[in-house]
């Protein structure tokens, strides 16, 4: 026989009023202007949609400012057999990946800064064809031992021609001199993901360099238009321009500066000054065009895993590459910055 507890039952049974409250409207209605003006930023998550060429996009934006210094032993996306690629390779494989750097002498960190991360899904009808994680703004040092990389990582090389002279043969130095290029001239070139033959290789690339058909240019300290005209006669072919190597293994770039470190961030503003915009990593089952939040245009990412660090507009409206290095760094690589406290610089 169960012991029923009448006093307890009475206490618990509360007769609710029989009024059935109407459920709140879930239908979307435009807010009146006075109501809109009262909503003083109610939340840090919002959801936006886009549509382009038959693909619908849904993006969840997080209003977060993130500063971080982190290490991971391995970042690997897309380890599968792919036509035209060596077996056992991944779309993206970076060992000892790190964001930001540390200062061992003071114990302080130089954080990598991220503004407004988002997650976006691309739908073809009701089928998800792509997924990406991106940052509206990002700035700092990205380090790692890059084994393979798929995506779009434009690099701008700008610096004095001194390293080019050092790497060049006597004959090439003579040609450069004829073209009006001196050791002190400021030269520029654009590099992108290529294979060892200089062809564009956005899938599982192991090199970054000047693609076949591109040439160096001189921005100051030369003979102006004459120099550029002469330089354009010498295009990069098979990873070389007049004997000077123009493709470099990704593994030698052990740290990459993202954004413009020379511009200091103003902590009073929400925006990150000098940041690169539109960084994302995506995975898609077909070529999917993702929206570039900076330019509002759509940028195509190939099937597979894809890392995109796009060019963006700087304060003057010019399209600049997110990574800028000089020729010393291009030829010699960029050593890894210290990302671990203590004796080690990586692998902690």
């Amino acid at each position: 026989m169960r012991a029923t507890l009448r006093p307890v039952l009475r206490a618990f049974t509360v007769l609710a009023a029989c009024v059935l409250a109407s459920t709140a409207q879930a239908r979307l209605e435009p807010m009146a202007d006075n109501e809109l003006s009262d909503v003083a930023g109610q939340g840090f998550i919002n959801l936006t949609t886009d549509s382009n060429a038959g693909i619908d996009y849904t993006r969840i934006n997080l209003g977060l400012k993130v500063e971080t210094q982190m290490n991971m032993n391995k970042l690997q996306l897309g380890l599968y057999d792919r036509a035209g690629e060596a077996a056992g390779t991944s779309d993206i494989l970076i060992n000892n990946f790190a964001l930001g750097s540390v200062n061992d002498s003071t114990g302080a960190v130089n954080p990598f800064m991220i503004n407004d991360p988002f997650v976006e899904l691309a739908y073809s009808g009701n089928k998800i064809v792509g997924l990406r994680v991106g940052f509206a703004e990002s700035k700092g040092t990205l380090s790692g031992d890059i084994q393979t990389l798929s995506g779009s990582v434009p690099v701008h090389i700008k610096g004095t021609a001194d390293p080019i002279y050092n790497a060049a043969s006597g004959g090439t130095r003579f040609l450069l001199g004829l073209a009006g290029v001196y050791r002190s001239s400021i030269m520029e070139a654009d590099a992108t993901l290529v294979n060892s033959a200089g062809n564009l290789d956005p899938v599982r690339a192991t090199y970054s360099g000047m693609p076949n058909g591109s040439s160096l240019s001189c921005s100051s300290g030369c003979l102006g238009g004459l120099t550029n005209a002469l330089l354009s006669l010498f295009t990069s072919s098979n990873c070389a321009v007049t004997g000077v190597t123009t493709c470099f293994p990704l593994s030698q770039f052990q740290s990459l500066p993202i954004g413009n470190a020379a511009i200091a961030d103003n902590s009073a503003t929400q925006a990150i000054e000098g940041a690169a915009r539109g960084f994302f990593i995506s995975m898609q089952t077909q070529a999917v065009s993702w929206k570039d939040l900076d330019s509002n245009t759509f940028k195509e990412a190939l099937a597979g895993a894809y890392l995109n660090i796009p060019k963006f507009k700087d304060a003057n409206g010019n399209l600049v590459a997110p990574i800028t290095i000089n020729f010393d760094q291009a030829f010699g690589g960029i050593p890894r910055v210290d990302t671990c406290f203590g004796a080690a610089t990586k692998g902690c």
Partner: protein
Amino acid sequence: MISRLGLLLCTLLTATAQAELHPLADDSLSDVSGQGGVYLSGEFSINKEGGPLWSKPASTNAATWTVGERSCATKGSTTPENCGMRLAVRSEAAGGWYVLDNIKGIFSFEGLTLRTRVINSGFAGDGAGFNRDVLEFGLPNEVKFKDGSFAFAVANQGGWRNSAGTVANGGDASYQQTNIFSAKIDGSIRMQGNVLVFPKN
């Protein structure tokens, strides 16, 4: 705690026998046999018609609310709604507050049971080695919600202030509450099973 619960159960068991409560002598207590237990059903509502803090205003436009008025309607709705219970917690001296806001609705359940049980068998072989008493909460077969809601937010003050209202109307422009999300629950959730609770040293 278990011993106090045992004492309570024993006291309640004897309550049906006499109208006047007497403490039982030990030998009477030790004669009590049979099974203890509780079977609960209940329905309760929280702030279904609003609560004591705020009355329902005439519109959802926060700038028009006077002192003591607040509507907790969903964003975009033009019909004002009563507000539910608010709970705010601060985990840091001189910090902001975590808020569970607008907790309201009608909640009913039937068949929540409570009893003790000896477990010395079953549980895919674990019971024999366990061989102890547990407190068994039997989940109700069905839990019904009607217009249940709550919101999770963070705020810079514990009590709600109308940031859009004028000072004369009790407003405080410096108040900032960021709603992370809010949820509405309607309908019934079918469940079965027991939660077994026992001390663990």
